[in-house]
């Protein structure tokens, strides 16, 4: 009997970071499968290139650049890669996507210190980089199955053209758009899995979508040309953003109060960009801007210590 001296607690939960990442990948699977079904082989290539590429690049950086000898792949790279892929138009070439992956993993994540240390959602940084670098491919949209170039519901709204998509089409996902954002139904299904596994708090999406709905309702009442609340919720990248990008643990606040503030901020910025900005879509920018406020939100929403009369002064 050889005894080890070890620190309490001697029991640990079964959880680990890799299992969390695996659950996120599982949650995104329905949307990814739908992407391949509706946009074909090219969507599959994008998904595989991004997911495998990001994990491999993350591993390479950790092992050979940062010399973490014991580093084992933790699937966080795959999550970033898959999210980026799902945020692309099928018009994007695989090598362009790889550039996005490089920006996401190396510039947005590793430079800041790797997993857990980055301020901005890496997948969104990668996406915005691609949007600016390859504006044509990033904003050329195909309708699913027949692959005709067309405008997304959000772009239609911006151009003031007559609406051609029903709410049902938008909810189920038979609309043009980024390959993973189109089906609200499948995204909700995936999010349900995360909730079931207690991987995520629902407060960010609730506040985010709620704010979008309220703002859309107000403007819609004033002028139906702004689009109805449901149109805004189902028609663009909001669901993918609110359910899977804004809820990224690393780049969102830690308390429920913080989640609500963050969600409201994302919602308001998204609507301001959609209604008044130059882009038809505002989700990526809104979340990235709010990412920058996370340290501030966290500082302002510290929990009150048990038995302390009032909030402790912050020294951060």
């Amino acid at each position: 009997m050889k005894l080890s001296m070890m620190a309490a607690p001697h029991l640990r939960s079964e959880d680990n970071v890799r299992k969390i990442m695996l659950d996120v990948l599982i949650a995104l699977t329905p949307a990814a499968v739908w992407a391949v079904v509706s946009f074909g082989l090219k969507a599959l290539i994008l998904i595989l290139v991004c997911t495998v590429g990001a994990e491999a690049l993350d591993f390479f950086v950790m092992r050979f650049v940062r010399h973490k000898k014991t580093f084992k792949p933790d699937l966080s790279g795959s999550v970033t890669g898959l999210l980026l892929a799902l945020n692309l138009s099928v018009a994007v070439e695989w090598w362009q996507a790889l550039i996005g992956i490089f920006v996401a993993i190396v510039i947005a994540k590793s430079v800041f210190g790797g997993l857990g240390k980055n301020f901005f959602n890496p997948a969104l940084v990668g996406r915005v980089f691609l949007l600016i670098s390859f504006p044509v491919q990033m904003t050329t949209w195909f309708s699913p199955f027949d692959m005709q170039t067309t405008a997304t519901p959000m772009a239609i709204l911006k151009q003031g053209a007559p609406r051609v998509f029903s709410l049902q089409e938008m909810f189920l996902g038979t609309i043009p758009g980024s390959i993973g954002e189109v089906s609200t139904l499948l995204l909700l299904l995936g999010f349900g899995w995360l909730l079931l596994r207690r991987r995520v708090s629902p407060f960010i999406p609730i506040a985010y979508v709620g704010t979008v709905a309220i703002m859309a309702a107000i403007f819609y009442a004033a002028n139906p040309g702004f689009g109805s609340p449901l149109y805004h919720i189902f028609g663009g990248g909001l669901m993918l953003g609110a359910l899977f990008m804004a809820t990224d643990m690393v780049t969102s606040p830690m308390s429920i109060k913080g989640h609500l503030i963050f969600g409201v901020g994302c919602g308001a910025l998204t609507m301001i960009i959609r209604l008044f900005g130059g882009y038809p879509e505002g989700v990526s920018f809104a979340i990235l801007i709010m990412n920058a406020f996370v340290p501030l939100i966290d500082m302002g929403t510290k929990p009150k210590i048990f038995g302390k009369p009032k909030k402790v002064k912050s020294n951060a």
Partner: protein
Amino acid sequence: MRLPTFRGGVHPPERKELSQDSHLSVLPLPERVYVFLANHAGIPAKPIVNIGDRVKTGQLIAESGGFISANLHSPLTGEVKEIAKYFHPTLSKPDDAIVIERSGDDEWELLQPAKSYDQFEPEEIIQRIKSAGIVGLGGAMFPTSVKLSPPEEKKIDLLIINGAECEPYLTIDYRYMLERSEGLVRGILAIMRALKVKDAIIGIEDNKPRAIERMKEAAKSTSIQVKTLKTKYPQGAEKQLIYALTKRKVPSGGLPLDVGVVVDNIGTAYAIYEAVELGRPLIERGVTITGEGIRKPLNVVSRIGVMAEELIGHAGGAQETVERAIFGGPMMGITVPKTDVPTVKGTSGITLLLKSEPLEEFPCVRCGKCTFVCPMNLQPFLLNLYGTNRLYDAQVENGLIDCIECGSCSFACPANIDLVKNFKLHKRVYRSLKGGAKK
């Protein structure tokens, strides 16, 4: 109806089934016992016996060494063999112990007089508790007589008896509640008389329905209430227990007496009964011998200072693949490097755990689990960040000293970061930087 509890906490595997149905057994008298002079919090006791002296069971062998200290009595009838250093299970280093070798029968020297608690004056009860060397048997080993003598200005109106036994694996308080309920109730009544309070509550987690039923029955004709608590770790932590039962919040840096409450553990209440009504000083206690590494887990009453090895033998011995031997339970217990380590007054259990997978550490992903489970509402991830960057003042400002070291954060952390281990270390560093000044 929602059961009373506190905010936060975790649900580790309980594993009480290993030992909960084993009736209290009595360990045969050991040949030798090793009684540490530091068998309580505070100043070690001063020996009053010499090597070669013959002592009776219950005879005073070391005197309280100051205000926060306690008497020590011989657990055996026999001869004082030596006063030497042995490995101390909670100080985790060799420390002075009086070694007594048994000779012949168990001849007791009792405290006089022994009579019904209601024939003692309150002050006499406190004096008796002090003479009997009674300390908190939940693990902290704080001298009970000090706790029962609050300063004048602190008005105590409630006694809480901690029957939560939230620590996984341990079942000793449970067995005492089932098998020693009459004595327990008399012990509680004695404490109430000492404190001059009318109300007492026994808080028991709802995973122990038989204990709740048994204690309700035993306390029927008294003003002692039995309340069911939600099963959640750390329900038995003093501040969380008081909050669950009374909604009173012990202020940061304060004590239960600041909110008019005294909390005692089940084992302590029983020891008080024995001291007051039977005249027996504290020389034995119940211990749960458990864990997957024990062949026949059980609950045993044994003399203080017996080697853990002997207790493990009494429980059928250890499995081959044991990796850790823990004094206490798996959440807050302390490992020992060998099993020939003697028990102390605060040893509520010995838990042997089998070899486990080494933990893979990840970077913190800011998931917020630690904050969610912290019963003190701290932000462990933030404290750890400050601590690893040696920002001890910022740590203290954010509640480092409020940490009760329950380990919920480390249990929950999906990155397997040793949060509570770091906090214990940081507290020591901070205190030594402040020149030992208590804050």
